[in-house]
């Protein structure tokens, strides 16, 4: 009784000095429910029109299983590669100066701003056997466009900004006095790097990798052109949804979408935990 009372009081009689609480929160919840939450809930309701057995058959079909391997495996690999290069890029942009640095810094966000279809046709043309880069790789016997390697490249492209943009601000705020202290206590540059500089950079690095991974798993536009989309070879999971939709198998499409949604929720949860860890780290 008492708890209910205080809960109600929280909403009703707490003196709100700034007006607009009801209006702004009400509109926010209404809009979010209408555009995002109710439609997404439809995924789970629609899948339940299939029996468990049918759902299981759909989401474990060999072609679909292989697409998980491609989507999740290559996304993980791409986000780890982004982790390494993103860290190096962030380091270089914060610590060194060289001609053209400002332009490069501004260009980092290009994969956010460039439409995915544009990225898709451009990467595909670049790495096709007749393309600017593809023709040289062909000499080395490397096929990129229309293979899983092409998918990996597209995923690295779209994941580039995440790690740079999470590590960069933390690196900028690091106090160089700590480094000086480490050195005056006899640490060499490598020790300083790994034991003084690295620890506070790990949470933002992991957050960036998780964000890149989340984006890569769901990516469609930039991958679909370069992938070649060969069954059991270079099909991604979002494509499996599209293929089911084109055959008007809405329930099956929805079942596969359900698997992807659960994974997305889990990644989102991880990112939130990482971010709260990250901000705790910075406060200490």
């Amino acid at each position: 009784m008492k708890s209910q009372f205080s809960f109600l009081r929280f909403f009703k009689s707490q003196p709100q000095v700034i007006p607009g609480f009801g209006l702004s929160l009400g509109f926010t919840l209404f809009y979010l429910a209408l555009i995002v939450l109710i439609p997404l809930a439809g995924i789970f309701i629609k899948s339940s029109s299939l029996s468990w057995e049918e759902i299981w058959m759909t989401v474990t079909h060999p072609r679909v299983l292989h697409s998980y391997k491609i989507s999740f495996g290559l996304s993980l690999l791409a986000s780890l590669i982004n982790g390494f290069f993103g860290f190096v890029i962030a380091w270089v942009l914060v610590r060194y100066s060289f001609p053209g640095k400002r332009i490069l810094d501004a260009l980092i966000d290009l994969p956010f701003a460039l439409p995915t279809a544009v990225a898709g046709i451009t990467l595909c043309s670049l790495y096709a056997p007749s393309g600017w880069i593809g023709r040289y790789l062909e000499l080395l016997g490397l096929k990129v466009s229309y293979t899983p390697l092409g998918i990996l490249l597209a995923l690295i492209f779209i994941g580039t900004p995440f790690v740079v943009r999470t590590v960069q601000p933390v690196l900028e705020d690091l106090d160089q006095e700590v480094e000086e202290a480490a050195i005056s206590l006899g640490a060499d540059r490598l020790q300083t790097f790994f034991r003084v500089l690295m620890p506070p950079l790990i949470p933002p690095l992991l957050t960036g990798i998780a964000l890149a991974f989340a984006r890569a798993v769901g990516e469609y536009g930039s991958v679909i052109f370069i992938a070649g989309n060969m069954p059991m070879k270079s099909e991604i999971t979002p494509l499996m949804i599209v293929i089911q939709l084109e055959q008007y198998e809405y329930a099956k499409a929805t079942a596969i979408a359900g698997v992807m949604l659960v994974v997305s929720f889990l990644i989102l949860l991880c990112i939130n935990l990482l971010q709260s860890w990250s901000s705790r780290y910075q406060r200490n």
Partner: protein
Amino acid sequence: MAGIVSRLKGHRASGSMALKEPKWVKRLLIGVTVSFLFIFLILPLAMVFISAFSEGISVYYASITESAALSAIRLTFFATMIAVPLNLIFGLAAAWSITKFEFPGKQILITLIDLPFAVSPVIGGLIYILIFGSQGWFGNSLRDHGIQIVFAAPGVVLGTIFVTVPFIARELIPLMQAQGKDQELAAITLGASGWQVFWRVTLPKIKWGLLYGVILCNGRAMGEFGAVSVLSGHIRGQTNTIPLHIEILYNEYHTTAAFAMASLLTFLALVTLGIKTYIESKAADEMNEEIS
């Protein structure tokens, strides 16, 4: 910001050798950065414009002014003009409620706003087919009234709205959180009304962040592919947006025309990045003025 930068510079000028990496390490790292960004960002960018103009300016002009291209441009603008204002109002409402008040479940709400980022755009399209499609919840009643949403322009608009929901809210929430609510409280105490506070106190403080959010939202709305592709039905001259038109041209081996259309969106992306850089330096300037 400027304080930190100048302090770093001061250190570097007087710093001992142990504070720096050896010269070859520095050169190696800069080399890795420049080559990575050259291969992954600059080369594709150059490729778009060079391919677009590879058959001369008249072919370029013809590709972007043929009727299917113009109709794609029109539909893209139409969808964007609806999606961006709606998500602008949402972003302001969400940021106001989250940053000016305390309520239980706030963290969950922030996570939910981010959902469209975490969900594959293909799923963003699928959910509206489940609701408005012929087999969907409202499928029958819509058909009875002769309204078509899926595989028509309204579907394209819905898909565009879905994928761009978080953009403006995400720019505003951290900004308004950092600014706090002291100035708003002061204005209220001095007798200002809620709307007066919003227009005269809050809006001037957040204008740059707001503008950047709108530009990002606009860019994504015009360039969205996955969600729109599922919802559009690909009827040439009717339900194609610029990205879908690019896909058709490319798959039909009209490569130059495809890149000509792509160059329009790429130009938009470059403008977005330019404005972003300008706004960031502007915001930094204003912060410095406040400090000094």
